[in-house]
């Protein structure tokens, strides 16, 4: 009898560990129906797009996946392993900077019998990992085994302008794998998320340090994002430069070459400061830190901080070491040069002229080769002016995105996609200025000036005001503005 009990208990234990040993049971297929806004006709949406991705159950009855799997979602359906029934899910938290999201399922019975997967540590280079997911090419779950090839900071293409710790593997990561767990010894050591065009047998996954940062960030019920120090560090390996800074001739210390306009950083950090230590990480002369055995960019050390925390730095300044406690906050100043989500684009339509803020998303409406065809002024304004000529930087540069043809604007010769300089003498610093300029003037004509060369167009004000309602109706624009 007692032997029988022991045996039963063992069976239960086995069964329990059997769940853990079958992580595929907790791997979820995600079907997303999404609709993105049209950035040069911002009141419209692209056709509904159906896409699939993967996810996995973690503790708290939540599904972890990639942000890009569920961005702009109108409806999300999730499927359990070998269960035909779709369940309705919704986004609980989404982190576009690090491409992670957590979903909730409306019907909590979805989670019954599913064991949440647990996270492991950053895997070692050369160790073996297995990706689980629902890639394109079939309906059933797929497993691919690979080796961890390298660990370093890589650009996260979902946001487009943020780099975080990334693990490269030769396990195939294909469309549909996104959001699926990468498993080692039954523990999740990453979330599959992107490949690289032109590189075969190369996939990338988001490692535990980034995942844990995300999970900790949302503990207050809100995702704020990775903070940024705004310090551009460059290697300091030239002996003359080291002597100039009276720095010992060793392998420590990288130089601060420029700063982003972040008040705390500009107050506490100086150009030519030499970063010796960030948090617990020593900074080498090539601008790297040794992060769990991997030599990676010192940015990884800054990314250990949560927003609102302070990071202890040791810098070399004017011939001696100085300790600094640097407040770390989220930087929004470069939002327009990254891919934007969640917030619908702002616009104002007046007499058929569609004005919208300049952004990368807007530029992409010019097509895949937009860099080749775009007005150089727009590229300069978007990418260079902010860092080169802060005095003339606009808070939110505005473009004439398109023209809805009407007799009132039919003789316009200015091409669309032009950067707006002034309207009726008002310098356009942000979209609200466009509205204010048009709505406040009593002149006979509106004068719209563009960059460069002071090219301008004119509208008869009375005719323009009279045409407004007709233009909106003709082109199905529900409202003349979204501010």
């Amino acid at each position, binding site marked *: 009898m007692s032997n029988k009990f022991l045996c039963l208990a063992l069976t239960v234990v086995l069964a329990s560990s059997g769940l853990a040993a079958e992580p595929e049971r907790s791997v979820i297929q995600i079907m997303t129906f999404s609709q993105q806004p049209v950035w040069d006709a911002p009141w419209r949406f692209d056709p509904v797009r159906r896409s699939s991705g993967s996810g996995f159950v973690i503790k708290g009855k939540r599904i972890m996946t990639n942000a890009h799997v569920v961005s702009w979602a109108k409806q999300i359906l999730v499927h359990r392993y070998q269960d035909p029934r779709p369940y309705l899910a919704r986004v609980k938290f989404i982190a576009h900077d690090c491409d992670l999201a957590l979903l909730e399922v409306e019907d909590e019975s979805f989670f019954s019998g599913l064991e949440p997967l647990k996270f492991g540590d950053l895997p070692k280079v050369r160790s073996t990992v297995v990706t689980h997911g629902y890639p394109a090419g079939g309906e059933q779950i797929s497993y691919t085994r690979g080796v961890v090839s390298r660990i370093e900071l890589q650009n996260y293409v979902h946001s487009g302008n943020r780099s975080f710790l990334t693990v490269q593997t030769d396990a195939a990561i294909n469309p549909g794998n996104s959001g699926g767990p990468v498993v080692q010894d039954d523990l999740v050591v990453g979330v599959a998320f992107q490949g690289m065009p032109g590189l075969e047998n190369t996939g990338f996954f988001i490692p535990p340090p980034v995942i844990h940062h995300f999970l900790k960030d949302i503990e207050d019920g809100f995702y704020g994002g990775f903070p940024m120090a705004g310090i551009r560090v*460059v*290697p*300091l*390996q*030239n*002996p*003359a*430069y080291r*002597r*100039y800074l009276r720095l010992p001739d060793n392998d420590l210390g990288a130089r601060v*070459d*420029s700063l982003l306009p972040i008040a705390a950083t500009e107050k506490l950090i100086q*150009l*030519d400061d030499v970063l010796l230590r960030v948090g617990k990480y020593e900074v080498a002369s090539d601008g790297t830190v040794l992060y769990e055995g991997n030599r990676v960019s010192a940015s990884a050390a800054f990314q250990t901080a949560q927003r609102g925390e302070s990071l202890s730095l040791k810098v070399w300044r004017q011939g001696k070491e100085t300790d600094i406690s640097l407040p770390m906050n989220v930087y929004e100043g470069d939002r327009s040069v990254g891919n934007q989500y969640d917030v619908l684009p702002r616009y104002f339509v007046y007499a058929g002229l569609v004005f919208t803020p300049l952004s990368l998303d807007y530029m992409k409406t010019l097509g895949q080769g937009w*860099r*080749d065809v775009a007005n*150089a*002024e727009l*590229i*300069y304004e978007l*990418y*260079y002016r902010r*860092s*080169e000529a802060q005095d003339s930087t606009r808070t939110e540069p505005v473009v004439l995105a398109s023209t809805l043809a009407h007799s009132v604007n039919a*003789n*316009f*010769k200015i091409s669309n996609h032009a950067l707006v300089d002034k309207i009726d003498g008002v310098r356009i610093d942000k979209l609200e200025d466009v509205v204010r300029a048009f709505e406040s003037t009593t002149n*006979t*004509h509106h*004068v719209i000036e563009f960059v*460069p*060369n*002071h*090219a*301008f*167009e*004119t*509208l*008869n004000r009375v005719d323009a005001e009279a045409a407004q309602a007709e233009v909106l109706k003709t082109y199905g624009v529900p409202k003349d503005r979204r501010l």
Partner: protein
Amino acid sequence: MNVRFIHCFAVLLLFGSGPGFGSEAAKKTPGDWERELVSVEVHRKQYDYFQPWTKHVQTVVKAGLLIGPREILTTADGLDNRTLVRLQKGGRGPWWSAGVKWADYPANLAVVTSTDEKFWAGLKPATLAEPVKKEEEIQIIRWRAGNLEVRKAEFSRFTVSHPNMSDAVHVQLELSSEIDGVGWSEPAIAGSKVVGLVFSQSGNQLQVLPSPFIRSILDAQKKGHYKGLGYFDFTWQPAENPETLDYLKLEGEKRGVVVIDVPDKRDTNPVLKPRDILLQVDGFDVDTQGDYVDAGYGHLLLENLSTRNKWAGDPARLKVWRDGRAQDVVYRLPKAEDAARLVPEAPFEQEPEYVIVGGLVFQPLTKNYLRSWGQDWERRAPFRLAYFRSQDPTPERPAVVILSQVLPDFYNLGYQESRQLVVEKVNARKVNYLSDLQQALKKPVNGFHILEFTKGETLQKIVLDAATLDAATKRVLDRYGIDKESVIVSPAK
């Protein structure tokens, strides 16, 4: 006698069968063209702006036309940095030593001559047509493998645009032809006359310098009036939006274009002002698209009036609408070669400028440097450098010097990935020209040279050891086989 008549008739038939072929065509045979068309062989140095100390040798064979006593007309393309020029007649036989009598690169015209009397024997001058008629049958001729090749071309249109390498704008003839590999001054002929010289080809489209334009320059050269091509340095926009003309209170019919940008010359009062309506140039009415009606060509862009029998320094009489009334002003044509550009053409007949400092290579930013990115250079060159072309020079930044590359040496360790950085200051001295850089390097700061670059996403500061700089530079020159550490041709500013 009968046979001879029949023979002549056959020739007439062959050459006179095309539509619209003038009666003069019958008088000219290929044999005539063989005595008018010569080959011009040019050996020249070609510089690689990525390695400005290197010279490649290039040989081009162009077409030339006898136009007068001891004068062979050709385009100026390919004549710069020449080391040897020779002429050949009849498409074969000996080459005769020659020299360039004059070359005008903005106009893309040159006259070549030879002192060898024997060369001129048997040659006959060609006639340049005036004007060019759209309806004429046009052919392109050139020497090919010792024979005269004659290929048909069709009139496409007259355009007004920048030719190669210049701010000057003038009328051009655009032809369509199946001929390949032209653009080296091959004559376009109609009947017995030359209607132009082909100076570039893109697919089937040929760009041709029309004969009237060529004649005007040759005549001015002969009379000693020629002062180089001028250009309009103001910017205008079409006035096809009638509301714009209403806003500017133009009275009468809609006409003219609107001046929107006038260069700030600081030392002179500008003749034109932004928002002037330009109504007439030298008595030619300007329409709202910016065209005027040319007696020889029909509708042409008004820019052609800056080079239509006018030269740099000549006055142009402009009628503008300003302050509610028409006003006459006199505008002096600035010289195209002197156009103030932040990114200029490198001067012709001059080797590229550079300075090597401890392996760091500095160069002035010129269009020639940007063209090193190949035919598609406007897209392929680094955006930030190419963007300077759209910016005007200012007293603070009249020109741009870049750190173009670093030739690796232990001395410049840590900077070896740096390239295409725009230099701001060296040892606290503003650097606009290479001469500024050289002066600044004479005054190191506490034993160091401190180089600062434009703010942006790239490296902003480099520090070099002053004491070992000369030795490092010498070592780099030796290691990379470079003769001179610097070439600075333009006068110190």
